[in-house]
């Protein structure tokens, strides 16, 4: 078990006969940055509180560093939590806040001072040692909260949406800072967020949760490019969904029928002929051509531009296809297409490169 610092075996949690988490199996590797990602109410915070010891399991087992932690109070688990609102003690200085855990352990005074000086250096707050929390900026408070947790030298740091109260710019900076801090400390981070962009940009692995279950565990690239089901695909980024049917199979290449047009798609999954499937295409993979730009339209879908959104680095289009579905396309400026001028109501052709789509079994 040396590689897995936390293991969850078939963990479930019910409150008042209402199941919040069912059958969670999860292995957290030592030193990784793992993110629990899901919409609010999916049970990710509850899962965190089960690991930290603030809530008791209904069934299952949790191992931390190889030990079954059932019934153990939070501070004996070698995990510490950074709370959503940081939960800094407002009546104490930065020093007293960070010293709180060490004083509870009754460490000698010089040891406490030494360890605080050490973590303050790591989070770059040496100058603010005598300040009260409300005299610090949001980012500084965040760093104090992290310092207060890591000064106890936990095996795992649990972070419960710690960036959600910061404004966009600061959040970006703190994402980078957190990631760097995690690398420097080598502590395992379990990070909870509902922001998929945050999850993708910070994590080594992402756990996607939905209605109390884990939908997929994988690297950011895996969950984005190879979603295991429709829920994951729709939650991570935007996706255009075409409902179709398998017509022919040739190894990893399948022929699908989309709106009467035949297209070749690549997939690692096994399907049978006649099976209904979803073909998913990300907006950045969907190409939009003007009428005059194309000749062969045999695998393209006709539509009309309904909305043009200029975003600086990209132009986002909403195209109404002839079967009345609305698809989104993100166009990048490049040497082929440096103008990207579309008029609303302009008839266009949409297509994508074969192999850039994801084929998933049909879900009702």
């Amino acid at each position, binding site marked *: 078990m040396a590689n897995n610092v936390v293991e969850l075996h078939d963990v479930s949690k019910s409150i008042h006969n209402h199941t919040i988490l069912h059958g969670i199996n999860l292995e957290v590797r030592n030193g990784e940055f793992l993110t629990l990602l899901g919409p609010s109410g999916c049970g990710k915070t509850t899962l965190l509180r089960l690991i930290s010891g*603030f809530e008791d399991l209904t069934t299952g087992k949790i191992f931390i560093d190889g030990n079954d932690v059932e019934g153990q*109070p*939070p501070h004996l688990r070698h995990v510490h939590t950074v*709370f959503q609102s940081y939960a800094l*003690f407002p009546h104490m200085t930065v020093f007293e806040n960070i010293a709180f855990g060490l004083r509870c352990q009754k460490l000698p005074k010089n040891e406490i001072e030494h360890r605080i000086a050490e973590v303050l250096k790591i989070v770059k707050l040496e100058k603010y040692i005598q300040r009260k929390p409300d*005299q610090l900026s949001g980012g500084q408070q965040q760093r104090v909260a992290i310092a207060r947790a890591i000064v106890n030298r936990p095996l795992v740091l649990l972070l419960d949406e710690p960036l959600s109260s910061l404004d966009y710019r600061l959040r970006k900076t703190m994402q980078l800072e957190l990631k760097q801090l995690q690398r420097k400390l080598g502590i395992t981070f379990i990070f909870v967020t509902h922001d998929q962009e945050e999850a993708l940009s910070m994590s080594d692995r992402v756990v996607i949760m939905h209605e109390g279950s884990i939908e997929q565990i994988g690297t950011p690239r895996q969950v984005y490019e190879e979603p295991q089901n429709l829920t994951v695909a729709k939650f991570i980024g935007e996706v255009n969904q075409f409902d179709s049917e398998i017509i022919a199979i040739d190894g990893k290449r399948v022929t699908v029928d989309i709106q009467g047009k035949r297209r070749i798609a690549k997939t690692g999954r096994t399907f049978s002929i006649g099976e209904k499937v979803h073909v998913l295409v990300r907006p950045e993979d969907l190409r939009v051509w003007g009428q005059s730009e194309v000749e062969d339209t045999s695998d393209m879908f006709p539509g009309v531009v309904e909305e043009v959104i200029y975003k600086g680095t990209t132009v986002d289009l909403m195209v109404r296809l002839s079967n009345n579905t609305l698809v989104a396309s993100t166009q990048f400026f490049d040497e082929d297409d440096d103008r990207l001028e579309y008029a609303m109501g302009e008839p266009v052709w949409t297509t994508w490169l074969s192999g850039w789509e994801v084929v998933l079994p049909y879900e009702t």
Partner: protein
Amino acid sequence: MKHDNGFKYFSLSAIWLWLSIFALFPLCLVTLASFLSHDQDSLVRLPFTITNYLNLFNPLHLTLKIFERSFYMAGFCTLICLALGYPFAFLIARLKNSWKNFLILLIIIPFWTSSLIRTYSMMTLLKSKGVINTILLSLHIIDKPLSLLYTDTAVLIGLVYNLLPFMVLPLITNIERLDNQLIDAARDLGANRLTTLIRIILPLTMPGILAGCILVFLPAMTIFYIPDLLGGAKSILLGNVIQSQFLVSQNWPAGSAMSIVLTLLLGFLLIIYWRSKRDKEAGELL
């Protein structure tokens, strides 16, 4: 904006006018009376004198003793209210909203009846043939009636009963605002319940504790009908003395002097409270 200002000035001046006529002006009269001489027929007369104040410190008049006794009684009552009220307020503040509102309503309902009448009903509970003694006797827990009424205990019970809501309500509002995550954080860092209470919960609810103590202590010093009804002739507190100076001995100047000294004392306590609050806020702004 102009309209808003007009409303602001109107309501402010209305309150100022009201307070000037019915609070400030009487206070001035009392201050004036406290420096005048006693007269049987016309209540007060010239010349100006400070005898009334000097008499307060005259050991023969026992006023200082009564001051001290009232101070202890009020202090004791405040402590009991705090000891009873804090856990109670804590429980209520942590409840779900529907239960919380119901329980707060229960605290407020007694206010719908005059406190004087409630004190009379207290007498029927406490007197020697009253409810408590009858029940205890019939259960054979005691074989002769306890003398509850007309003791200091009865006065304390009455004071605590009447003033407990003034302790509980500010505490509830204060404890409600306490962030649950702070208690979780303390637990996370290894604090046991006692440490969490002493280091986190009590310091953070101190404004509520101080507000509650002031709201209990001030009336406890001056309510005269509770010691009058429940303490009888034996339990004389400052409120009673002032009342009897005005209504029984008809010595308005002496009663006024006592009132003024009491007002100054209580004002002094308030100033200490404000200073501690302001210093704390100033400290936080640094």
